[in-house]
C-alpha cells in the first residue's frame, strides 16, 4: 500500500508556504510515496493556489517523494497546463503525478463567468490536448472549445490529429521551419517521464470516474462525508475499467482521507476527530480501518490529510511522523 500526504497552506488570512515546504521535506524524509497539492481559488478558508508552481518549489526542496498536483482544468489554457507540468516533471527528474481535476466550485466559475453545464466537456477536451502535447511530436486539434493552432488548416491525419511519419514532402527539419505555415503545434519541452507523467483523475462524480476508467487512468477519491459510499463508488470504477478491457494493475485507486491519530497528546474528543469521514483512532485502530477499506475497495494509495480544523501545525507534523512510524510499516506487511 502506498501512502501519501495532502499539503495545504494555512488559511487565507495567514497563508504559510514555508510551513508547507517544511511539511513536504518532512514527508520526503519520513518515506511517504507521494505528496499532493490541490487547487482552490479566492478567499477560501483553505486556499490552495497554483499547484504546479508550488510543486516546482517542492521539486527543489525534496529528493524522492512523488509530487502530485491536482490541477483544475477549467481555469487555465490546456497548453499552459501541459507546459507547466512538463517543466515540473523535468525540475523534479520525473517525479510529477498529474491529477486532473474537472471540478470547480460555483464561486470560481462565477469569477470567470463560466457556465457549469459545459464544464465537463471542456475538461475532457483539455485533458486530450494535454496528453497529446506531452506525447506527440506535433499535433493539431479541433474541438468545441479549442482549435490549435488557431489558424490550422490541418485535418487530423490520424484518429488523434497528430502529425505522423513520414511527413508530407519535402521534409524540413523543425529548427528550419520558421516562417513556414504551421499547421501543427509542437509543444516543448517534453516531460522527463515516458511516455508521460501518470494521470490521476479526481473522481468527484460518476462522469469523472467514467472518464478515468475509459482512459485507463487512476481515480483519486476526494474526502467524502459518507465513507460508507466508498466501496460502492470503487466498485463502479472497477467495473467500468473491466468493461473497457483495462488491467487493474495499471492503476492505483487513491483515496484522500482526513486522519487524526491519538498519541496521548491529541484530544480524542476534538471536533476534528468526531467529524464524519475522518479516520480517527490510535495507530493500531487506524491500521485496522485502512486494511478494511483496502479489502472493500481495492485501495492502492491512501493520501492522508493531517491539517484539519482545530489541529495545530505542530500536532499535524507529529501526526505525519507518527503515521509514518506506527501505521505505514503495518500497512506494507
Amino acid at each position, binding site marked *: 500500500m502506498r501512502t501519501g500526504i495532502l499539503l495545504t497552506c494555512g488559511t487565507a488570512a495567514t497563508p504559510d508556504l514555508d510551513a508547507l515546504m517544511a511539511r513536504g521535506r518532512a514527508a520526503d524524509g519520513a518515506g511517504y510515496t507521494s505528496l499532493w497539492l490541490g487547487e482552490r481559488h479566492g478567499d477560501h478558508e483553505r486556499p490552495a*493556489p497554483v499547484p504546479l508552481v508550488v510543486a516546482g518549489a517542492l521539486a*527543489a526542496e525534496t529528493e524522492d517523494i512523488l509530487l502530485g498536483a491536482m490541477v483544475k482544468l477549467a481555469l487555465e489554457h490546456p497548453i499552459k497546463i501541459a507546459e507547466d507540468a512538463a517543466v515540473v516533471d*523535468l525540475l523534479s527528474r520525473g517525479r510529477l503525478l498529474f491529477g486532473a481535476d474537472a471540478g470547480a466550485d460555483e464561486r470560481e466559475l462565477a469569477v470567470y*463567468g463560466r457556465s457549469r453545464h459545459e464544464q465537463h466537456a471542456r475538461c475532457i477536451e483539455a485533458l486530450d490536448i494535454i496528453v497529446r502535447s506531452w506525447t506527440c511530436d506535433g499535433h493539431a486539434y479541433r474541438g468545441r472549445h479549442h482549435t490549435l493552432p488557431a489558424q490550422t488548416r490541418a485535418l487530423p491525419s490520424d484518429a488523434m490529429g497528430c502529425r505522423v511519419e513520414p511527413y508530407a514532402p519535402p521534409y524540413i527539419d523543425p529548427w*528550419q521551419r520558421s516562417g513556414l505555415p504551421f499547421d501543427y503545434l509542437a509543444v516543448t519541452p517534453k516531460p522527463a517521464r515516458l511516455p508521460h507523467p501518470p494521470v490521476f483523475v479526481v473522481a468527484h462524480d460518476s462522469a469523472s470516474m467514467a472518464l478515468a476508467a475509459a482512459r485507463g487512468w487512476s481515480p483519486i477519491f476526494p474526502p467524502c462525508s459518507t465513507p460508507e459510499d466508498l466501496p460502492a463508488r470503487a466498485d463502479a470504477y472497477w467495473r467500468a475499467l473491466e468493461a473497457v478491457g483495462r488491467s487493474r494493475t495499471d492503476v492505483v485507486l487513491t483515496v484522500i482521507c482526513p486522519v487524526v491519530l491519538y498519541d496521548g497528546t491529541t484530544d480524542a474528543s476534538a471536533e476534528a476527530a468526531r467529524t464524519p469521514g475522518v479516520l480517527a483512532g490510535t495507530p493500531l485502530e487506524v491500521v485496522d480501518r485502512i486494511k478494511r477499506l483496502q479489502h472493500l475497495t481495492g485501495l492502492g494509495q491512501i493520501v492522508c490529510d493531517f491539517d484539519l480544523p482545530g489541529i495545530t501545525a505542530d500536532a499535524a507534523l507529529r501526526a505525519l511522523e507518527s503515521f509514518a512510524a506506527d501505521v505505514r510499516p503495518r500497512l506494507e506487511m
Partner: protein
Amino acid sequence: MEFWVGLYGMQSTRSCPRAGPWMYREVLCHAAAAEQLGYDGFALTEHHFWYDGYCPSLMPVLAALARATERITLLPLALLLPLRDPLRVAEEIAVVDRLAGGRLALGFGYGYRSEEFEGFEIDRRRRGARFAEQIAVLRAAFGGERFSHAGEFYRYHDATLAPRPWQRPHPPLWLAGGSQAATARRAGQLGLGYCAAGTGQSLDGVAALFAEYHAAADAAGVPASARRLGVAVDTLVARHPDELARVIEEDIVPVYAEQLVAFGFVREPDGTPVRELPRQHPIFRVLLDSFVIGTPEEVVARIRQFEALGCNVFMPRLVEANFRSAAILAHLRLFAEQVMPHFRAGRR
C-alpha cells in the same frame, strides 16, 4: 548599478544538446553560484513551441530558484503576458513572491512569434491593447480588495487575490522590449520599468529608446523616482584577445547561426527565410558589434556608456555564448571578479 544575470532559457540546441532534467538541475546550481559571486539578480526567458525545448513555464522554475537562493532578485524576462490570463498570473506572482520572501520582480514582454499566439488562441495584432488591460487587472488584483472587471479582453466578477504577494502593494513591474519605440513608450506611460535589448542594437538605438521612455513617462506624470531602466545584452569577457576570438568562432557563431535560422529573422530579398547562414553573412557583424565583448577593461568601458544613459540595471547574457555548464560558471566568475567591482566602489 545592479547586475542581473540575463536571459537564461534552458535550451538544448543542435550545436550543444543537453538532457532536460540535467539542464533544470544546472539552472539551480548556476543561480546559487551567481548569488555567491555577488550578482544582484537572475533572469529567465520564455518562448513556446521551440525546437530546442526553450523553457515555456518560468513560474515553476522561479519557485524552485526561490528555494535554492536566499538573497538575489529573481525574475522572468520576459514573461509573455498577452498569452496568459492576468488573474492567474497574479496568483502565480503572489505564490512565487511568498516562496522567495519578497525577492520576485516581474519582467513582462509582448511576445512576437505568431506560433505562440496561435497556440494560445490569442489575436497577435491586439497584443498592445491586451497588455494594457492586463496591467490594469494585475494592479486591481494586487490592491487586495474584492474587485470586478469588465474590459475588452477579460471579465471577472467578484474576484479576490488570495494569498497576496509578499511585497506590498506588489513586486516591481518591468516591460522588456526589442527595438520598438512603441514598447518603450508603453512602459513609460504605464509607469513600469523598461528593459531594452542591447543585442543587435547600437548604443544610439538604446539611447533613443530610453528617451522615448522618459518622454512617455513625463507625459503620464510618472515621477522620476518611479522610473527604472535596464539593458539586456550578450556579454563576453576574456582576459586575452585570442581567447575572445576562440569563443566567438567556436561557441557564439554556431549557436547564433542556428538560432537566427530557427527564429526566421534573416530573409532573402524575396522574403523567404534563409536556411543556411554562412559565417561571412553581414548579420554576424551587426550582432557582434552590438555585444559587449572584450577584455575586462574594454567591457567596463562599454558598460559605463550604458550607465551614462541612466541605466540602473545591467543584464549581461553570459550564458548564451556557450551552454556548457563549466564554461558558464567560469564566465560568471570572471565577470563578477573583473568587471563588477568597478561599479561597486561606493557600495561595499
